[in-house]
């Protein structure tokens, strides 16, 4: 009897504590006429290092100019998109608009706020290592792959080759699969989906270390492309309609900065800065290269270097003159 009573008492204490601790935060966001400015920002972290770099740059400005604190929430691409629309994530620095099949619909329905283009000069496609390209000068385009199936054997199905695609959940994964079928490669190649970013990177690095031939889908800017020498296989010129059937090269994807509707309403000044946040693939790669070359540096260090020494002109582009001088003092 005593044990039951003690247990019930403990349970009720836990629930009371949970209720008290969550109520101020929960009740604040509903129905306020002028939404309170958020000072603790939540950025999306979909796992790529380029987004972590951009989070660090925007976060550094958030801290030094606006006096905010910020955190990153790890989530996969579709899940961070859902969280952004719900308002659980405030800022998504790299919305790869083509990888989210519902993006256009959601934007039209007003479920999120698109502030501007982060960069739109990235490249995607099938890559081969430089040593394979050097040894096989005839292998220049995706169509050529049908003559080189013997280079890429699939240990899981003897007699066939394998070509690695994207991660489950990305639209590009299906488009690349259609591309393999369109060029008639599916009779010789198995389209293998690695299952996760980590598995894909590990497979590519392992092949590079052993100097084995490998053909795989990848994109730039990434640390992998910056560190190793891979060659993009050419394809037919881009055409909007044919692209979705896999018949042409991939267009540069518009990578946007998006915020949740709640955040757009509560932090208009910060959103103005974000709408001026334009970089490029080359600039992002520079930031990532800094990280690779300076062992032990963090994304914060790279962001600080980027704004202070790498590209100080961007500070004037992103911020008003008063904000810019505040940032320069802090750095």
């Amino acid at each position, binding site marked *: 009897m005593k044990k039951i009573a003690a247990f019930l008492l403990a349970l009720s204490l836990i629930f009371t504590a949970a209720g008290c601790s969550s109520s101020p935060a929960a009740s604040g966001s509903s129905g306020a006429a002028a939404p309170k400015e958020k000072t603790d920002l939540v950025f999306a972290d979909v796992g790529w290092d380029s987004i972590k770099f951009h989070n660090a740059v925007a976060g550094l400005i958030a801290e030094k100019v606006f006096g905010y604190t910020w955190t990153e929430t790890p989530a*996969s691409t*579709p899940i961070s998109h859902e969280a952004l629309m719900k308002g659980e994530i405030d800022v998504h620095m790299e919305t790869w608009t083509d990888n989210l099949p519902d993006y256009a619909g959601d934007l039209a329905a007003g479920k999120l706020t698109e502030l501007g283009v982060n960069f739109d000069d990235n490249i995607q496609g099938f890559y081969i290592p430089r040593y394979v390209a050097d040894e096989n000068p005839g292998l220049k385009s995706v169509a050529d792959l049908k003559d080189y199936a013997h280079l890429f054997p699939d240990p899981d199905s003897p007699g066939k080759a394998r070509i690695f695609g994207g991660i489950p959940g990305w639209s590009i994964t299906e488009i690349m699969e259609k591309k393999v079928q369109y060029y008639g490669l599916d009779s010789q190649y198995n389209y293998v*989906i690695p299952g996760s970013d*980590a598995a894909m990177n590990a*497979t590519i690095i392992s092949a590079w270390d052993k100097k084995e031939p490998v053909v795989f889908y990848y994109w730039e800017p990434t640390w992998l492309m910056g560190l190793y020498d891979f060659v993009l296989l050419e394809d037919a010129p881009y055409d909007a309609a044919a692209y979705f059937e896999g018949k042409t090269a991939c267009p540069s994807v518009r990578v946007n900065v998006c915020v949740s509707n709640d955040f757009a309403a509560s932090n208009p000044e910060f959103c103005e800065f974000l709408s001026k946040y334009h970089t490029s693939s080359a600039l992002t790669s520079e930031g990532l290269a800094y990280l690779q070359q300076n062992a032990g540096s963090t994304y914060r260090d790279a962001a600080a270097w980027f704004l202070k020494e790498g590209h100080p002109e961007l500070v004037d582009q992103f911020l008003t003159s008063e904000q810019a001088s505040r940032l320069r003092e802090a750095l």
Partner: protein
Amino acid sequence: MEWLFNFPFVMKPDLNAIDSAVRGFALWASPVLDGISGGLTALVNGIGWLLAHIPWFLLIGAVFFLGWKSRKSIRSGILYAALLALIGVVGYWNAMITTLAIVMAGVMISLLIGLPVGILLSTSRRLNNFARPVLDTMQTMPVFVYLIPALLFFGLGSPSAVIATVIYAVVPVIRLTSLGIRQVDREVVEAAASFGSTRMQALFKVQIPQALPTIMTGVNQTLMMAMAMVVTCSMIGARGLGVEVLNAVNRIEMGRGIISGASVVILAVILDRVTQGWFGKEEK
């Protein structure tokens, strides 16, 4: 007052050195690792080929027969056969065969390693104490920490999936075999000794038969843990039901997730019930 709440001494280990060491090892040991990888792939492909070449009605019939015999009731047999047929009806038959091949390969290797190690551990308390932290690590180390080196060593797909499954699933059979043998009544062992049996004879003819219910529980748990690794294996390129679940999760397709998840559950339950009934100890 900050010093009270911030840990005072931080010294980060040299992570780059660890990375280069692992990658260097992958390169240096490449012949051996490729051999292991090839062997595992052949094993999984062989089992897969065998299962794929059994006509579907024979497989369902086999499940019916095993279910009937192990649970001693025709209704169980019919139920399990119907559930298995359901997996086929939702279109996951081939995926199920692929998953079954990987799971069976993993369980076979786990038992081949686990049973002897369990028997070995039962003989000495000191060995047991040494092994316990190792077994704990194998079960609690976050899976991707040893999966990424496994990918570097053995490549994407079935070999790494089998290795991951073995590392996770071999622990129950080791623990329970060792436990079962050590828990056999000392008086029974003494009686055997008094009749003139050697230690090995006592082990194989007295202790192991007495410990069989516990050992079979270990085998059953190993099977269950191997099934639990199915989705993780799909993240490192193994094909089968896990890929369906992964796709569903990544695309937020809840219907697909529920159906593919249910197929995994059905497969696990059938394997569980069928292997449990074999040696008499039943869990209701």
